[in-house]
């Protein structure tokens, strides 16, 4: 009778830019500890959808519910406080700072606010979290390195780690494998899979093979609208998806 409430619900979400309906009446739900992936051709509105959910943009219509709480249009730092964190398609880190410092900054929200004004060393929880993340993401060796000097693959991994640092309930990953080599992509897939034990994941991904392996649910977007939703095999068979996304395969 008491079905578990989805972590994230999106209802009728819409925004348009000068007449162009970038996201148009999109609704779906993300179940706890599942990997839900949004796919769609370029310009389908996937990134805009992420921006709406994470508070970077305020929707013109519709709602975003986090664990049943209406957070529509809340600014990103509020979303973060409500348990939603995100990574970016174009790596967005503190490039002049060290790996550990990037993680520490993001983990600081685990501490009470008053610690903002106390010496960095007194934030023990944040420090522990940094160590956890460094080993989880195999960045131990590079903790002291300046982020700008890391390889692309490491930067992309850190991008996820920074988002994860605050122990969010739901993690939005915007093309985590963007620009990665094959080997790195496979590693990242395994990483995302392992993360999904502890955190609900909403993903944007281009690599279809990866998506099929990784996802519990797939949401397909085309020209701002959701055209299909379901388990990977069901979506793969969907006629509308075939024409819109896979061409005439």
């Amino acid at each position, binding site marked *: 009778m008491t079905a578990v409430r989805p972590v994230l619900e999106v209802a009728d979400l819409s925004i348009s830019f000068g007449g162009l309906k970038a996201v148009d009446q999109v609704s779906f739900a993300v179940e706890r500890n599942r990997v839900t992936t949004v796919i769609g051709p370029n310009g389908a509105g996937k990134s805009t959808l992420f921006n709406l959910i994470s508070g970077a943009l305020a929707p013109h219509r519709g709602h975003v519910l986090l664990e049943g709480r209406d957070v529509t249009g809340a600014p990103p730092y509020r979303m973060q406080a409500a348990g939603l964190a995100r990574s970016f398609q174009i790596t*967005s880190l503190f490039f002049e*700072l*060290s790996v550990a410092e990037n993680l520490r*900054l993001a983990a600081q929200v685990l501490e009470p606010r008053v610690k*903002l004004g106390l010496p960095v060393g007194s934030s023990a929880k944040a420090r522990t979290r940094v160590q956890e993340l460094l080993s989880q993401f195999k960045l131990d060796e590079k903790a002291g390195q300046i982020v700008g000097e890391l390889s692309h693959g490491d930067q992309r991994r850190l991008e996820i780690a920074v988002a994860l640092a605050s122990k969010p309930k739901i993690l939005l990953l915007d093309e985590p494998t963007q620009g990665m080599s094959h080997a790195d992509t496979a590693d990242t897939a395994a990483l995302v899979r392992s993360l999904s034990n502890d955190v609900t994941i909403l993903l944007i991904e281009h690599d279809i093979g990866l998506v099929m392996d990784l996802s519990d649910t797939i949401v397909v977007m085309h020209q701002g609208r959701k055209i299909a939703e379901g388990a990977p095999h069901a979506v793969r068979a969907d006629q509308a998806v075939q024409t819109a996304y896979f061409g005439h395969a």
Partner: protein
Amino acid sequence: MRDAITLQTRAGHWLVALLVLGGLVFAVVGFATGDTFYLRLATEALIFGGLALSVDILLGYTGLLSLGQALYFGLGAYVSALALIAWQSFWAAIGASLAAALVCGLAGGLIANRVRGVYFALITFGMAQVLAKAVYNTRALGASDGLIGVPVLDINLGLFSVSSASPVGFFLFVLAVTVLFYVLAAYLLDTPFGRLLIALKANENRVLFIGYRTSTLRLGSYLVAAVIATLSGALYPMLRGFASPELLFFSTSGNAVITVILGGVGTLVGALYGSVLLTIVKSVVGSWTEHHLIVIGLIFMAVVVLLPKGLMGLVQPALVSVLGRGSRR
């Protein structure tokens, strides 16, 4: 955990200790030779060093260029002068200045932080200019003459008291206060709050997404800078006996920016060394030509192009590597 930022801060502490040592030697020599002029000049350099420190908090840490920090320096000078004339009390002057700093800093911060980048530079410039012109035209504040006749002051520090008329005594007092400003700023900038300011400069958008309201952080930084600038300004009439509208003018703000760039932006201690350096250059060059601005302008341009980290960019990396080696052992 000793990371790069902590090491850099430590290098700064050593350099400040060196500055204090130099200051003490200077005070002894000044006292022995019965000098007044140079002690007064050095006191002034330290006071303006405090102003430059506040510019560095904004520019070097938060990435905000203020072209109107003189607003707060002048505010402090005028409020302090008024309080000193009325009550002849150091603590009353400081209290009144602090209150003014908080009120005006909050108001100014709310206005200035609505914009970013060059607009921030121009709005701070504009706000300072409005106040400067207003003060310049206000008879009650002495108009273009400024407030004169600030009495000589005995600063009661509990255990002992210092007279603002004593060249050595007041120099040492201002040295202590300046170091206090430095300690306060260095402490704050090494807390998670300060680290977030550095993060803000590196990537403001991501700070928003890791859970912080960036406008509040910027306002906090602005307020800290306003308080330090105001309190530095509050010392000025104690030294010179007056507060003049020039203290609010762009040349004062511009000098503070030059000081920070010369000394090394984003180092805090650079602001203090920069102020000493600028004072020396001005008086040395000024002794053989009245056109010291050409020299200062050329030096300034050369530093902007060739030495983006200023004087400290030459000194600090070496010190950091020594300290780094020391801590690894």
